């Protein structure tokens, strides 16, 4: 009964979303403020009913209601409680319900925090969001209903959740990633609403910025967590595979990164207006395209979960009008968006232009490599190919190196034009310091590598220039510490974000260059040498978990004769599905991870054992966390807090000039 009510609630949410499109549209036509304002109240209704539907499905999982087909195929009575909840979004139908819930959350937040917008602009933004939401609800209800019952013959026991997904990663990764994916619909809606109402002024950019930053921060966090999860859970120690599903999230991230920068230029200086609109459209379009690629299973992936080929066509039917329609609107309206603002080659605008060119080109080459197999298959009449990681590395890495080099100078730049002396002051000294530090780092990691020295130099230069910029802001003030603390949060957000890039880059280059990996045949008592470490294997014991049995190995890692870690990697067999899973054990050291996983059992108690030494691998995700924190911090900047919470019915907000932002 609860499940039927849940289903019914989602139907109501769908109808409300429909009303949220129709009523305010009529309001716009008839100039009725009341009808326009209905968009906000309806947003709350849509959210509440979606949440009720969501809770009903959680209830079905908690009650082990295997008469619900979706529960029966993804849960089990012995599944631990937290995984019964997260099993909800472990496959196509349920994860799409989560997607609609996330959509309703964003729409509600926009309704809540957009009071100072003019009534018609606010209505237009919410209509766009509601129209997208309505499409999602239709898709959910017509093709992917998670509430469907398998009556009258339903199983007494569920088929269980895929063991790989019985992990903390499943609890946090999809919700964060969806917050990012779907959150990009907000700048998209702002852009479409402005094109529609012909109100593409600077206030549009100011309004889009905090939303874009927040969605982008979620996306960053989602991707970072996904990488970390794949690393420890998949059992082969990789953290990025240039896999189709990964790229599907990375392309929108690259576009969104370009967008947050060009929005800054548009807001501050009124430049790149039509380009920024285009990025906002493409950011969300690529996140839809990603959803299509991931869910339709048209591409070979190591992360293929929520795959259902038949529904791919339905997503495509949604994708084409959304992307096509918005581009059509763009081409009709954007041509008279010429910015009449100039800037010099040395101005910050130029650096942001460079950033945008590099990021969109890298998004394009990643997309090309991801979609190429599809095009090839279509052109050759069925030849299946795959594009190897060397392609992505060869085209992506050089672009990122140039981007990092540009980032070093960008911290010194000023809007419109930058004095030459400002760009170059102290760079000689910094170069030497960065060079010494970079060589020192490489030597500390083992034999010296040019790649590490080069990337570490770039990373150090970024950090030093960030520090210099902070110093320059306070040096002539009477109370430098207080002055430093009173810098706008946006400055600290930028510092965190860019420092995060430096940290991640350092982690990537060190891990790639210095990792030691070995697949070993080890009988109990065997020992092997790997890098500076000795590895001893002491055989396995049987252990029992809540819903699995496992062989648990004991591996000692020694350095110069002393045991520095004892690791217990497991090979688990989950009882319900009888599937086998590797649970790696990782010893985390400040300078890197020691990663041990069991392969397969061989004769006489011997095992295939995989041992990895991964220097600085944690830097990759730590940097990602810093970047995401920067995004979150930026939305608390005073400039956004004040207008957003002000309940006055002020019209468009005049862009205020703030000296603090130079």
């Amino acid at each position: 009964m609860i499940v039927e009510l849940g289903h019914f609630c989602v139907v109501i949410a769908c109808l409300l979303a429909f009303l949220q499109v129709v009523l305010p549209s009529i309001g716009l036509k008839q100039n009725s403020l009341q009808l326009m304002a209905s968009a906000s109240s309806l947003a709350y209704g849509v959210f509440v009913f979606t949440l009720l539907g969501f809770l009903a499905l959680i209830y079905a999982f908690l009650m082990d209601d295997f008469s619900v087909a979706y529960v029966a195929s993804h849960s089990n009575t012995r599944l631990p409680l937290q995984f019964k909840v997260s099993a909800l979004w472990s496959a196509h139908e349920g994860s799409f319900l989560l997607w609609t819930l996330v959509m309703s959350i964003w729409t509600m937040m926009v309704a809540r925090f957009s009071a100072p917008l003019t009534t018609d602009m606010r209505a237009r933004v919410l209509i766009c969001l509601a129209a997208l939401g309505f499409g999602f609800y239709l898709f959910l209800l017509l093709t992917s209903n998670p509430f469907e019952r398998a009556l009258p013959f339903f199983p007494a026991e569920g088929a269980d959740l895929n063991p790989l997904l019985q992990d903390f990663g499943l609890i946090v990764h999809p919700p964060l990633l969806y917050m990012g994916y779907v959150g990009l619909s907000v700048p998209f809606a702002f852009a479409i609403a402005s094109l529609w109402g012909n109100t593409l002024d600077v206030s549009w950019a100011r309004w889009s910025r905090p939303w874009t930053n927040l969605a982008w921060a979620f996306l960053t966090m989602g991707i970072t967590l996904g990488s970390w999860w794949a690393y420890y859970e998949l059992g082969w120690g990789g953290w990025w595979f240039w896999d189709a599903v990964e790229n599907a999230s990375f392309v929108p991230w690259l576009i969104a990164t370009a967008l947050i920068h060009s929005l800054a230029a548009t807001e501050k200086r009124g430049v790149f207006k039509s380009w920024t609109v285009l990025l906002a459209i493409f950011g969300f379009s690529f996140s839809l395209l990603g959803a299509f690629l991931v869910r339709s299973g048209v591409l070979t992936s190591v992360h293929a979960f929520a795959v259902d080929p038949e529904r791919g066509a339905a997503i495509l039917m949604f994708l084409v009008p959304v992307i096509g329609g918005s581009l059509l609107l763009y081409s009709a309206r954007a041509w008279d968006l010429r910015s009449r603002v100039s800037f010099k080659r040395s101005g910050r605008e130029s650096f942001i232009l460079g950033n945008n060119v590099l990021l969109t080109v890298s998004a394009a080459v990643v997309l090309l490599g991801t979609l190429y197999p599809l095009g090839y298959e279509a052109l050759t009449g069925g030849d299946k190919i795959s594009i190897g990681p060397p392609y992505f590395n060869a085209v992506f890495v050089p672009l990122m190196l140039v981007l990092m080099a540009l980032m070093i100078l960008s911290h010194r730049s000023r809007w419109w034009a930058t004095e030459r002396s400002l760009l170059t002051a102290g760079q000689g000294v910094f170069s030497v310091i960065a060079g010494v530090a970079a060589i020192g780092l490489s030597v500390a990691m083992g034999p010296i590598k040019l790649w590490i020295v080069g990337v570490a130099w770039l990373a150090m230069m970024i950090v030093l220039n960030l520090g210099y910029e902070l110093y320059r802001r306070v040096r002539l003030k009477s109370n430098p510490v207080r002055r430093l603390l009173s810098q706008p949060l946006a400055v600290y957000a930028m510092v965190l974000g860019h420092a995060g890039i430096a940290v991640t880059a350092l982690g990537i280059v060190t891990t790639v260059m210095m990792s030691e990996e070995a697949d070993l045949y080890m009988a109990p008592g065997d020992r092997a040498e790997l890098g500076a470490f000795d590895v001893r294997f002491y055989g396995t014991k049987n252990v029992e978990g809540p819903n699995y049995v496992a062989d648990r190995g004991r591996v000692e890692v020694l350095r110069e004769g002393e045991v520095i870690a004892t690791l217990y990697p497991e090979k688990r067999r989950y009882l319900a599905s009888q599937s086998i899973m590797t649970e790696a054990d990782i010893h985390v050291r400040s300078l890197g991870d020691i990663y041990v996983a069991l392969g397969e059992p061989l004769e006489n108690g011997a095992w295939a054992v995989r041992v990895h030494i991964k220097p600085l691998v944690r830097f990759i995700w730590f940097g990602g966390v810093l970047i995401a924190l920067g995004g979150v911090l930026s939305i608390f900047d005073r400039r956004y807090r004040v207008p957003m919470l002000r309940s006055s019915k002020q019209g468009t907000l005049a862009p205020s000039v703030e000296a603090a932002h130079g």
Partner: protein
Amino acid sequence: MKLGAMKPQRRNRLLLILGLVGGLGLALMFVLKALNSNINLFYTPVQVIEGEAPIGARIRAGGMVEAGSIRRSDASLEVAFNVSDLAGAAFEIRYTGILPDLFREGQGVVATGRLSQDGVFFAEEILAKHDEKYMPPEVAMALDTTRQDSMQP
């Protein structure tokens, strides 16, 4: 019209456009070259045994792991097994290292590696899947084509 005779503003714009087009062309050439040298074509068991697959080039091949065909060496991680299209065509894959968890008899696998002169496929990587129900599209296609072929009289 000579370049020098143009107005400086127009000349600058022309040079900018030429530079952009040249740079884009160069970049595109580089990207396509990188793309072409990293294409791994997929071959079905029939194509492998009929000699359609190139010898020594990096390719991908796969099918279903044949029951009872998995052979391991005694003191190393070398393993050999046959993959078939369930319609009679099969070839041998050799691999040294740890196989994915879901590798077992009767499962579809895709291997990346090189084919040797004597028809043995030396794999550098065996595609791991996360889900037992998931079938790599390539393997599905390999099985489909044989099914269609065998239906024809």
